[in-house]
């Protein structure tokens, strides 16, 4: 199989995306090359536009074209309730389920001594500052049901204690080892409604 250089470069780039191996990347590229005008150029334009316009929200870490993001600016949201998530994918999953009416805080990962991820590598200091300055009433820890997720939740509970804020966790029902963004919306909604003190 011989592939000319631009094709190979495109396949190589696509193959770096989650869920796409080289084989699927090659299939996607072939499909696009059959309709360059209808698929490829609009995709290229959309990629450029998103790359230039979208940035992390300086307050919560969500991705949006403006900072603070649309959620942080929305006057109808409950400003006293902050839901802490591992990544933006979880934030979006909770938004799709429409169960959380407060604000968010994206940590950017979970603690992992073996993976070399420590408290300073996560947005923990900004969270503590936010809670102290904005006087939040409740922090909901919506972290994955893994050892690292549970460790991070325990760590945050400990660090948030001096602020006096109420800290809660998602109810059991999030399957062990389960990432939030693959849960169906009903399960996620039930887990948020039945949260318990951390």
């Amino acid at each position, binding site marked *: 199989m011989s592939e000319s250089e631009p094709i190979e470069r495109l396949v190589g780039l696509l193959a770096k995306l989650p869920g796409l191996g*080289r084989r699927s990347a090659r299939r996607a590229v072939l499909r696009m090359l059959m309709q360059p005008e209808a698929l490829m150029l609009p995709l290229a334009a959309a990629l450029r536009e998103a790359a230039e316009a979208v940035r992390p929200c300086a307050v919560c870490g969500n991705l949006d074209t403006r900072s603070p993001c649309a959620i942080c600016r929305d006057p109808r949201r409950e400003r006293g309730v902050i839901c802490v998530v591992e990544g933006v994918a979880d934030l979006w999953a909770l938004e799709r389920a429409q169960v959380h009416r407060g604000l968010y805080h994206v940590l950017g990962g979970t603690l992992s001594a073996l993976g070399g991820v420590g408290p300073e590598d996560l947005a923990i200091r900004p969270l503590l500052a936010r809670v102290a300055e904005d006087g939040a009433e409740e922090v909901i820890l919506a972290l994955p049901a893994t*050892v690292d997720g549970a460790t991070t939740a325990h760590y945050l509970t400990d660090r948030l204690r001096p602020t006096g804020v109420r800290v809660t966790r998602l109810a059991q029902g999030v399957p062990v080892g389960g990432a939030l963004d693959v849960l169906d919306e009903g399960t996620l909604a039930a887990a948020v409604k039945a949260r318990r003190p951390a």
Partner: protein
Amino acid sequence: MPPNAPPGLRLTRLTLRDFRSYPALETGFRGRIVVVTGENGAGKTNLLEAISLLGPGRGLRGARMGELGRRAPAGPLPWAAAGRFENAYGRFDIGTGTTPAAEGCGSAERRAWRLDNIPLRSAGELAERVAAVWLTPQMDRLFQEGASGRRRFLDRLVWALEPAHAREVAAYENAMAQRNRLLAEDSRDTAWLAALEDAMARHGVAVAAARRGLAARLNAVLAAGVTGAFPAARLDLLCPLCEALGRDPALAVEERLRTALAANRARDAAAGAAAAGAHRADMALWHLPKRLPAELCSTGEQKALLVAVVLAHAALIAEARGFAPLLLLDEVAAHLDAPRRQALFAALAALPAQAFLTGTDPALFAPLSGLAEGFRARPGILVPDEEFPLPECA
């Protein structure tokens, strides 16, 4: 065996492709007891391993995916194993083997199962249908070697009944490894250490409680004499956590472990390991008539004790799942003296379970003539043993 014992699971056909020493094999089993004899290296254990891999887990050698394919100059080949089973409700096929690895996913270690050619979604679905227990020559060193082998043996017994146990053990070991790392790096982050110790306490106590539950159930079966002429035995857990669970509520035990871990950080850092926890558990198996622990018994007595444990375990699985699991007994007869061998054959004849036995010496199995179906293993193939005719009514 009580008359209301659940019916046994039966393997009636086995198909292998590029599995270990077998390029291709297709063979039917009509006996409830199947005897496979052959020289060392003829592939007898490989055959039992293939059968063990039709159920959940990594099989009787605990092998990794990459070790199972037949060797070729370019490396191990993709392999497949399929079994046709019969149970009280009918016939079904289980297939397993190398997954056509999704490129770039980096998970060539994954093994998938198919039920009647439809992918199974969870190991739990498989556990509802197929189970096997085994005894291999590797277990002969169980009582001579370190505690970690006995812990693995114990955890396998638990796991066969409670699949979630494997996850608890893995979570415990993960949290412990992370704490060891932080201590080795001389971390002063007490909140992070406390978070990991909390995970160790929660998962560690769950692990200990499951081991304790298994020991109690197994001892009840052993005491009831289900294992026939095998020596009465008792399994004792040597584990402070398990003992504490006998006295105090689990939450109190958890809290104490949490406190102990926090108090011993400096000592654990110096030792490079935690002094307390579920990873410290050991077990002792007692030969009750002789009042001796297994490590002080003769090789034959140790083997007999292990047979008793395996048969009791099979009875527990039968009770939990509603069907008797397959029994895979690799080179067991050779280590037993004639009376015990006779006792084993009598026990197997009385059990509802299908049993597969291997050995080098066909003469040892002579008492099973007319009861068992015999095969000779030769490299890569299996041929019916003409001196061991198929029983009339198996």
